[in-house]
């Protein structure tokens, strides 16, 4: 694993990302990662709040439209995140707070997918915000908030 990580980190691409002076390298990738964050978590928050009873006059069926936005943000952050990881692969792979962030994202994706399945999986009309939906929504809010904090702390907890 380590030689592979070393190859990634010492690649020409990594040298460009972290070493070049242009704002189109590291700063722009980092900014795209923040744009993606706002879309991913923003979309998740909308779904979660609706399940928790905010905006009751929004038809639950229409919440379905928010999921493609969620996945758009997720795609942006998968691509920008892989670029950021590759450029510092050896350092990041062993950074505990980064691994915690990855775990929280994995849980967040599972919870979000489960919310979608619960709402729209059965072909029957979406459930009214039942208590299980509330638990999933609260879990989602906590987990995505945690992922943001872990991501931010990557700059401080080496």
């Amino acid at each position, binding site marked *: 694993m380590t030689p592979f990580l070393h190859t990634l980190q010492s690649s020409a691409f990594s040298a460009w990302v972290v070493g070049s002076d242009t704002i189109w390298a590291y700063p722009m990738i980092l900014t795209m990662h923040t744009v993606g964050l*706002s879309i991913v978590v923003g979309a998740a*928050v909308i779904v979660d*709040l609706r399940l928790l009873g905010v905006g009751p006059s929004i038809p639950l069926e229409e919440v379905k439209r928010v999921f493609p936005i969620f996945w758009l943000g997720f795609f942006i952050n998968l691509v920008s995140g892989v670029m950021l990881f590759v450029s510092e692969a050896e350092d990041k792979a062993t950074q505990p707070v980064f691994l915690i962030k990855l775990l929280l994202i994995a849980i967040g994706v599972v919870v979000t997918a489960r919310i979608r399945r619960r709402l729209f999986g059965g072909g029957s009309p979406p459930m009214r915000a039942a208590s299980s939906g509330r638990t999933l929504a609260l879990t989602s809010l906590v987990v995505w908030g945690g992922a*943001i904090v872990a991501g931010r702390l990557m700059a401080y907890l080496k």
Partner: protein
Amino acid sequence: MDPFSAWIEATRISTVMRDTTWLWPACESIHFIGLALLIGGAGYFDLRLLGFMRRVPVAAAKAFMPWAITGFAMNLVTGTLFFVMAPHMYVLSAAWWAKVFFIVVAGMNAMFFETTLGTRVMLLGPNEDTPTSFKIVGAVSLFSWFAVLFFGRMLPYIGTGN
């Protein structure tokens, strides 16, 4: 350093906060959670103003605005703390002034909507397309908030003069 920044940085409150090493990362974490609430809540309403998700009544799509405003308030408070801790990073930064400019644009745009077009929201039925004026307000809002995010994140990298 400019005299204004030097004066703020010499104050007791600025010094004490800077010496509290966990405060900066804590504020950053809150700032990023705040931006997600703001973009999520405002962005959802902006998309409806642009004519997406037409089965959602425009008035109903506004339900998340208190959460967007909460996010903005979180970021105003944490942003002010950043400024007090390190004013020279901001007052001399072109990116910061661009960020402030787009916050003002977004704020004025929202105020324009509330004071002139906002009352027409209630007249709009479900499944109805939005008038062009609504679409412009939605587009300006969406663009401005992402511009705020862009210049905020780019702050350490562009227009710092060093």
